[in-house]
């Protein structure tokens, strides 16, 4: 198909290429994409006269002027130039899920889309029932007493936790002292970040040989200044910390609260429950584990759950059932809101649909399969030259994902993980996830198979990686200059952090790059 894939029996692939202009370059003066009705006789008035002096816009915004079909085609081109799991994506830490069209379809109905959160409760009983129903499902999966869906993402749920816990300590009058959050370097960056944003100091424990910090390090970190212990487990190395119960015990002994970031829930669904391990609170990502589409970055939902002791501090409202009726309630000591309204309702609905479609058996089986598939993948990856597994000292099976590194490949060929990531997209494989900062493993990548993909897909993914690694040894240039079969060629990102060159708007681009041709001559 192209000159870039000479010796492979992998399926042919090429991305759609449209050479699409930026929308700001498109259209023609006078074109319209949408017109609005005229004000009716009796309503029609001089618009200028309705705007207070000085408050009217002087110059029209320099937006494109396009017909409706042009706008549609433009964005369709962009959609086609998005790989978006049209091939195989084993993007670790995000848990590739099936985002079922059935729930998308239902969520697009006016009964969801055209409702307002301030409607009288009796006109939203359907939504309230589903939200409440999902709350009870998460309670069962976690052992917590109450969930709230206000947070607009996983990080926002982490922030919610910080707010709830600071509210708790404030109510106890201890917030002045208990201002430290203890976490690990393998916790998601949002945990220390939201802790800091909420006004806490962050104490970070480093991992040791087996992939998690030692009990000694934890003990040293805990004190009467500790507001909470915050961690995820398994982490995104795929390692489950078997001492976690002891950690919680120690934290509690120090008077601290414990928060479980349950974003990596997929491998342990139905196997463990946060509450049983002693945690006071936890969060789930509905746009991850629970099959709501993430849409490249939300609308998302961080479902936050906690014990009855913390529940009064939750941001409200939460949905309560009273007899046959569902109603909205605020907690007695609510810390206020982390976001307006009650959360991304359509996503909660989709997560509910996912959980119901799976059922208890399906949820457990999904966990089984994702761990099985991950270890199957690990087995195959271990046979590829150039790869190194994280924490080789830990011989345990990994959970739903495993952190790997291309350190040896880099040393031997100069081809690094970003190159391999790019090159794999030439075969229709979505760019994989590397690792959060800091890169504890050199040249990291983190595949996660999940329960959706079949063995053939996993095999294809590994075959492509094996092929690209082999290319790195035989023809490193082809890998370093990748992609070749994508919508565009490799990006030159050298200007992205340069104030003289970055441009997040078209007007900034024109100002900074006025002399540069819009497109290089072909």
């Amino acid at each position: 198909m192209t000159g870039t894939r000479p010796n492979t029996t992998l399926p042919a692939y090429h991305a759609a290429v449209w050479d699409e202009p930026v929308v700001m370059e498109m259209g023609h003066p006078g074109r319209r994409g949408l017109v609005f009705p005229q004000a009716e006789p009796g309503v029609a008035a001089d618009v200028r006269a309705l705007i207070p002096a000085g408050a009217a816009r002087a110059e029209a915004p320099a937006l494109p002027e396009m017909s409706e079909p042009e706008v549609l085609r433009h964005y369709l081109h962009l959609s086609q130039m998005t790989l978006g799991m049209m091939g195989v994506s084993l993007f670790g830490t995000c848990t590739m899920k099936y985002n079922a069209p059935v729930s998308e379809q239902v969520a697009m109905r006016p009964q969801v889309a055209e409702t307002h959160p301030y409607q009288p409760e009796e006109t939203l009983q359907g939504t309230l029932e589903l939200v409440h129903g999902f709350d009870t499902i998460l309670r069962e999966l976690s052992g917590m007493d109450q969930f709230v869906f206000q947070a607009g993402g996983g990080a926002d749920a982490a922030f919610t936790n910080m707010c709830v816990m600071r509210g708790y300590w404030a109510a106890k009058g201890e917030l002045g002292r208990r201002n430290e959050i203890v976490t690990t370097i393998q916790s998601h960056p949002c945990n220390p970040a939201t802790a800091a944003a909420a006004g806490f100091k962050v104490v970070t424990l480093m991992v040791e040989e087996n992939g998690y910090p030692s009990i000694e390090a934890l003990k040293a970190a805990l004190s009467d200044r500790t507001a909470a212990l915050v961690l995820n487990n398994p982490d995104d190395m795929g390692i489950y910390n078997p001492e976690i119960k002891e950690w919680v015990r120690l934290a509690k002994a120090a008077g601290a609260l414990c928060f479980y970031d349950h974003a990596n829930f997929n491998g342990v669904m139905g196997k463990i429950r946060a509450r049983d391990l002693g945690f006071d609170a936890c969060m789930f990502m509905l746009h991850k584990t629970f099959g709501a589409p993430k849409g490249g970055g939300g609308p998302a939902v961080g479902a936050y759950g906690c014990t009855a002791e913390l529940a009064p501090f939750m941001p409200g409202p939460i949905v309560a059932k009273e007899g046959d009726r569902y109603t909205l309630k605020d907690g007695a000591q609510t810390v206020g809101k982390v976001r307006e309204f009650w959360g991304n309702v359509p996503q909660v609905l989709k997560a509910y649909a996912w959980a119901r479609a799976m059922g208890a058996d399906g949820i457990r089986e999904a966990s089984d399969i994702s761990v099985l598939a991950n270890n199957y993948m690990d087995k195959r990856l271990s046979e590829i030259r150039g790869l190194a597994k994280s924490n080789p000292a830990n011989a345990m099976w990994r959970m739903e994902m495993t952190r790997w590194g291309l350190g040896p490949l880099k040393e031997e060929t100069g081809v690094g993980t970003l190159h391999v990531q790019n090159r794999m997209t030439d075969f229709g494989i979505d760019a994989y996830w590397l690792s959060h900062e800091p890169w504890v493993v050199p040249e990291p990548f983190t595949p996660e198979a999940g329960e959706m993909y079949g063995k053939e897909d996993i095999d294809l993914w590994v075959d492509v990686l094996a092929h690209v690694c082999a290319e790195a040894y035989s023809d490193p240039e082809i890998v370093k200059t990748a992609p070749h079969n994508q919508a565009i060629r490799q990006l030159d990102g050298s200007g992205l952090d340069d104030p003289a060159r970055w441009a997040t708007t078209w007007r900034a681009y024109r100002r900074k790059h006025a002399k540069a041709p819009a497109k290089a001559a072909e």
Partner: protein
Amino acid sequence: MRENEASAHPWMANSVADLKRRMLEAVGASSIEELFHQIPEDHRFRGELRLPPSLRSEPELKRHLVRTLSKNATCEETLSFLGAGVWQHHVPAICDTVYGRTEWLTSVFGGPSSDHGRNQAWFEFGAQLGELVDMEFVGLPVYSWGCAIGHAIRMAARMTGRRKVVLAGAMDPERLSVVRTYCEPRETATHIAIVHVPHDPRTGLVDMAALKAAVGTDVAAVYFETPGYNGMIEPRAAEIAALARAAGAETIAGCDPIALGVLAPPGSFGADIAVGPTQPLGVHMNCGGGVGGYIASRDEERYAREYPTLNVSIAPTADGKHGFGLSLFHQSSYGMREEGKDWTGNSVYMWAVANAVYMSLLGPQGFREVGGLILQRAHYAAGRLAAVRCVRVPHTTGFFKEFLVDFAGTGRTVAEINRALRDHGIFGGKDVSAEGFGPMALYCVTEIHTKDDIDRLAAALEEICR
């Protein structure tokens, strides 16, 4: 177990016995259970999960969802005047079409080349919003308008090293509650004190005298909205910005972007940072689940270096075409953990694509038209309601799409009025009686409300207040 449940699950390709077996053989484990060895037995939950019965059959699932949701009433069948943070605007069909493309309605995001289309759409969100607000730097949206205010205030606090913010004019308690969460409480080391200078109830606008008194050199930022929570357009926006600037404070303006075809954009009146809602731009209300918030500013390093958001920038490809990548990624929480600028994560980026479609579709003319139409209809409505016996409209001019209606003269509570309106198939405006306004409701009238709709409301109120 029932027969169909024993069969493979439609969403799990490997839920077939022989595939599990083959993978187990390959890894050399005797059972799946063995793979969970790393979880100590005393961690394990061994009970039955008491979940509602599985609905793995799509016909059952769909029916259950549809039936349950049929208990809702919608703002399509019911004539609604609810606004206050989420508003009923027309959502063009192609916003839904584009939103629904399976290529981006997934669990994944990818690289600059493999996700080129998505990155471009995001850039186009910023590029177009930049024109609307008249500013050069735009981040990807955050969770909501309230969250955008929170981040903007924190940016200003970091930039100025000051720890006090002045909020001027009527504030939505919903948004205010979020802002408080971002700034307070007092006990924390990084606490930002909030001073609220309320609006002048006579004019509905910022009380300039009170504001002047409040803005000293300890103030990091002045935040105000135009149109404000009470719907009023702030004609002295430039004066407020000048006042803030004189004190060395940043001006943060909250602006509804759907108004910016007719109202002066924040860039033009001297705002340093603009924030506002994204839901009006082509996103359904979704029971409040359609909200998002933008942050924009001048493209100066001082501002840019404080953004907590992902920022999509244009950048060249190897063959000199337009590509797109993330600017200033390192300063985010992904790059620096607790040293990063606040935090970021999944947000409402798919809505940003719908916003981009909306802005492309309207263009300058469309924004002018929609703004003008809203103004005309909202003013017609205010006039009609003001003419209803015992009903008073405190400000019959000077607002955009929302305005207060005072029911004191009716001798009834707003709750009673709204209950009565329900019987006419109408959702009355938001009851703000508990917010210090007196027995008032905040009515929202947009381009979707025809003259007939408004007349129907007026007639219903006339009947109710008879």
